[in-house]
């Protein structure tokens, strides 16, 4: 997307979307409630679909419009609703206690990763003044923050949401770097995402049940 400069309206809007997504990734990293993880992810996806719509307007591309609609419907609504119904509510999960570092440590690490994202994206890689130069560091930071929350969280749902945030970051980078991605490939990526989430939901519930069963077993043994 070389035609789009960072000072055009679409460029500014995309930049804004990137910043909002980064903030939401930080918010997710800083929260401890399963409900919030899902809510922040949903909000981030809505912002992402707005970004896709912005590019769709800028490039008069019908495919990007479909993509924006798909993002909103699947990532913004379907996945958060499903995650809340099938996982958080059904397994009666509230507060995530399985973290390998404290919240403040992970936030500081997140800040460092954001700085790193700006450091590595050099002008030699992406020329100044293009929208990609402004947004790609943000999307890289979102990817790194998602990966960080996967590392920090030991609970499977925390890791699942971390992966979804990574996907959002990749998507943001994708629509600013390459606007000519063929639709069939985008659709395939979406299918993979949905299948992946379904698969993971099955495993999360299976694992949670197994672990709950195991601990109940232990209790019985201790009593006997």
């Amino acid at each position, binding site marked *: 997307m070389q035609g789009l400069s960072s000072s055009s309206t679409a460029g500014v809007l995309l930049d804004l979307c990137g910043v909002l997504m980064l903030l939401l990734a930080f918010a997710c990293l800083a929260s401890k409630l399963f409900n919030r993880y899902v809510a922040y992810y949903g909000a981030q996806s809505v912002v992402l679909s707005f970004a896709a719509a912005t590019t769709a307007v800028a490039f008069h591309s019908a495919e990007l419009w479909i993509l924006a609609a798909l993002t909103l419907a699947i990532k913004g609504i379907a996945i958060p609703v499903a995650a809340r119904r099938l996982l958080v509510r059904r397994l009666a999960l509230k507060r995530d206690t399985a973290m390998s570092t404290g919240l403040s440590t992970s936030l500081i690490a997140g800040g460092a990763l954001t700085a790193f994202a700006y450091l590595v994206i050099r002008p030699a890689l992406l020329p100044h003044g293009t929208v990609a130069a402004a947004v790609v560091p943000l999307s890289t930071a979102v990817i790194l923050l998602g990966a960080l929350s996967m590392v920090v969280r030991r609970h499977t749902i925390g890791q*699942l949401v971390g992966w979804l945030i990574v996907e959002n970051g*990749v998507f943001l980078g994708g629509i600013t770097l*390459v606007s*000519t991605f063929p639709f069939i*490939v985008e659709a395939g990526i979406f299918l993979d995402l949905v299948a*992946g989430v379904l*698969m993971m939901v099955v495993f999360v519930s299976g*694992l949670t049940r197994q*672990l709950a069963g*195991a601990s109940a077993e232990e209790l019985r043994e201790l009593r006997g």
Partner: protein
Amino acid sequence: MIALAVLAALGPLTGPFAAACGARARVAGLAQAAGAAVALGCAVALLVMLLHHGPLLAWNGFLYVDALGGFFLLTVSGVTLLAALGSVGYLGAEEQRGELSRFQVRLYFTFFGLFASFMLACFETGNLGLLFVLVEASTLASVALVGLEGRARSLEAAWKYVIISSLGVTIALVGTLFLFYSASALHLGSNLGLTWPFLFAHAHALAPQSLRLAFLLAVVGYGTKVGLVPMHTWLPDAHAEAPSPASAMLSAALLNTGMYAVIRFLAIARARLGDTYPRAVLLSFGFASIIVGALFMVRRGNFKRLFAYSSVEHMGIIAVALGFGGVLGLYGALLQVLNHALAKSVLFLSSGDVSLRYRTREAEKVSGVLAAVPVTGGALLLGSFAVLGSPPFGLFLSELTIVRAGFARGSPVFPLLLLALLGLAFVAFARTTAGMVTGPPVATPSPYGDRGSAALTAAPLVIGMAALLVLGLWIPAGLDEVIRRSIAVIT
């Protein structure tokens, strides 16, 4: 030709079809094997036509098969056939014993076929975006196989596998995006512009900075699927927990699929960036994998984990061979891909028979396999020697080629290090398997209901070992031609 290519990718779907019709393990397994045989036949026919007519390009580059793709098609469809034959006995015994429910057996064949089809399709697309989609789809299909047994450990292994691999492949997608970005000067408008042959042909016009990043991200991303250290952590768990024929598929087919994607990126990177940078990247990941793989093999324990670490080591060897480069290095790498696939299929399938009979996956508790079950014991022993690269098996030849390629590239440090590490791996690996094969036999009842299943279990072991022996003594002219053409495609 297009029909052949499509049939090769869709062939293995006979298994899911049979499972959907409600077939039991035996019938579904035989259907699966028939489908895999069809795929193998199509792959061979396709290769013959490719040698005569050159690469096949259709549907805007969404369908693209060249000699390299054909070579991997051949390897993976062959592995699928062996693993499908092994599945008949293994799943049948598990079903009979009540370890797996009928639903689980149907699940197994559904995902087995899908897994194989997705992998075969990977080798038939030129569009790098679609390659990502298919690789990720193959991950998702194989996850169900890893978690099939439904115990806490297998679920955990499956979780680790899906989360690490999905993240890794997503990184590869970022690499793909940067590759497309590096081609901005070419004004990619059509789908054809996003295909490998186009980008490779126009490599000189790619922006070197972003191509460098793209290559590194692709190696890290697809390297996660290959099992390169330090992205290998999912691999031992997944291989140990999956049913043995599925482990064979993971080790001998899935890892190669990842390697195929790495080779495609490597070809573009070499064409634009020269030799130094790709070489440094591949040699570091490769040697790290060999070292870690060899060291973890020293530990005794679960024999399937041992085989899994040996896969890490072998993928490292292939990466090193790709790093050495040159015709000799690439020849060794491709030969190693084929030989390792055959040897690992034999090892994992024989480990399936052992774990069915002894009801354990711990090497300590197994002894005297050779006396109790001569075919399996023989396959285990000879397969171990083959995988360790001792003559007269194929891996000796390919590893020798790789070491020669290393010496041909100047500094003798790397090939000497490689030889030393191979020696360490030899001792570590043989110590465990020799203990399993020899010793006093333990009386174990046959887990198979009838002689037919037992024969079907032995068949892939014999076929695999025979192929390995042949490849060690003599490389058929057709295969040699295919490998040379493959090298010509990527240099």
